[in-house]
């Protein structure tokens, strides 16, 4: 009886970023979010997905994307708002050759 209740009690499982946000361990949560946002490209979908996060979390995710795709830094770095984000973006934006891609 109890196992049956547990099996059918919950609705559909949280997916995507909502699933990540529910994770308890911060490292696991960060990795999960990053794995989700890299699927979104670097356009409006990404911007929309990041909109609900606090500035530090948003900039951490943006910086991770930028570090993997420095050629996208012009668009992504325009969205950072924290000192951390600005500092990391300066590392790329002051080096024009990095924007040529790998």
């Amino acid at each position, binding site marked *: *009886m*109890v196992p049956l*209740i*547990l099996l059918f*009690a*919950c*609705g559909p499982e*949280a997916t995507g970023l*909502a699933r990540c946000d*529910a*994770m*308890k*361990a*911060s*490292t696991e*949560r*960060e990795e999960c979010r990053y794995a989700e946002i890299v699927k979104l490209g670097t356009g409006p979908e990404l911007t929309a997905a990041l909109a609900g996060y*606090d500035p*530090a*979390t948003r*900039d*951490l995710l943006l*910086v*991770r994307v930028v*570090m*993997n795709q*420095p050629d996208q830094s012009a668009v992504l770095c325009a969205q950072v708002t*924290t*000192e*951390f984000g600005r*500092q*990391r973006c300066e*590392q790329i934006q002051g*080096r024009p*050759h*990095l924007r040529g*891609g*790998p």
Partner: protein
Amino acid sequence: MIRALVAAGLLVALGCAGLPLGEPEPERAPTLLPTGSARDMLAACEAEPIPELAWGCRIEAAAAAGREGDGGLADQICRPLQHPVWKDECHFRAGEELGRAGHTAQSLDQCGQSAKYGRFCLTHAGWGMPPDTTRDAQQWVTHAQTALPEPLQDEAADILRARWWFNRYVGTGRADPLAAQTALPEEAAHARGAWAIEVMRLTGGDIKLARAVWAGTVGPPRGEALPVERRVGRYDIGLPIPGEQALPRVRTFADARRLVGQSVDEDLTIAFLEAIYFNGTPSGDAFRPWLDDPLPRVRYTAFHYFRILPSTGVEDALRRHADDRDPVVRAHVADALAYRTWEGKGATGGTRSAPP
């Protein structure tokens, strides 16, 4: 049975609400880049759990190792990087900082590992070299031949010779031509170019006087030495003009290169014209007397600068050469008229600035 149902209900309530069974860890505040010694920075990088942040951290640590003159530590810092951009960038940052700190051999070693950024690294490291001419340029060239991949070796030699001779003369307040006159054959054009910049600076751009100094009929001028940060000038990379591309050139400053004359006298004229531009003439008039020079390379150099600077009647002067019998001159004129280059639209690198 009831107790089991209550327990199950609690599990469902917690689980379906997405609540973890305990407090979630707070969001981690991302850290700023470390400061301090390269070793301290490396320790901070090694403790960074997020790979992308660790990459950026290592880039800064490698630069610090370069400033400290420790190429071995830079190697240790860069080695774990696998990302194709950041591995090369790591060695690039270390290389340019080592060069700036005067550790030329170690700098070349790093540039040799910076793969696709090797050429940039070389340019930055070479032109960042401080004015220390206690060792000769050939030592650096020899080292470059072992430290760098074959396709970069000739360019390295050109940069290193140009920088060495630049440091030997430019901004020193001394323009004794003897060192340039006795330079190794493969360095002679670099030497003349650097000497020309300084002698033209000290003589107020007087080519006749500068020639007399070279000939020894007038003693070498002396003047105020410039602080190192002011030993810079204006340069123009220029567009490749058909017919000129195969002619020999040497590096003058940063990415800029000049034609080399077929005789010492011709080469001096070219070097003087280059010096006029480098030292900052505001008008193309300075180059007008050489537009009809019988020596093609002198003419090409004169056209190169005449057409990118404003002067009275520049457009008419260019049009008079539109049907020139020399196709290289015609190409200069056609490009200039098409883009009105004297209005600043075709000039590249035309600022008075330090090298990149």
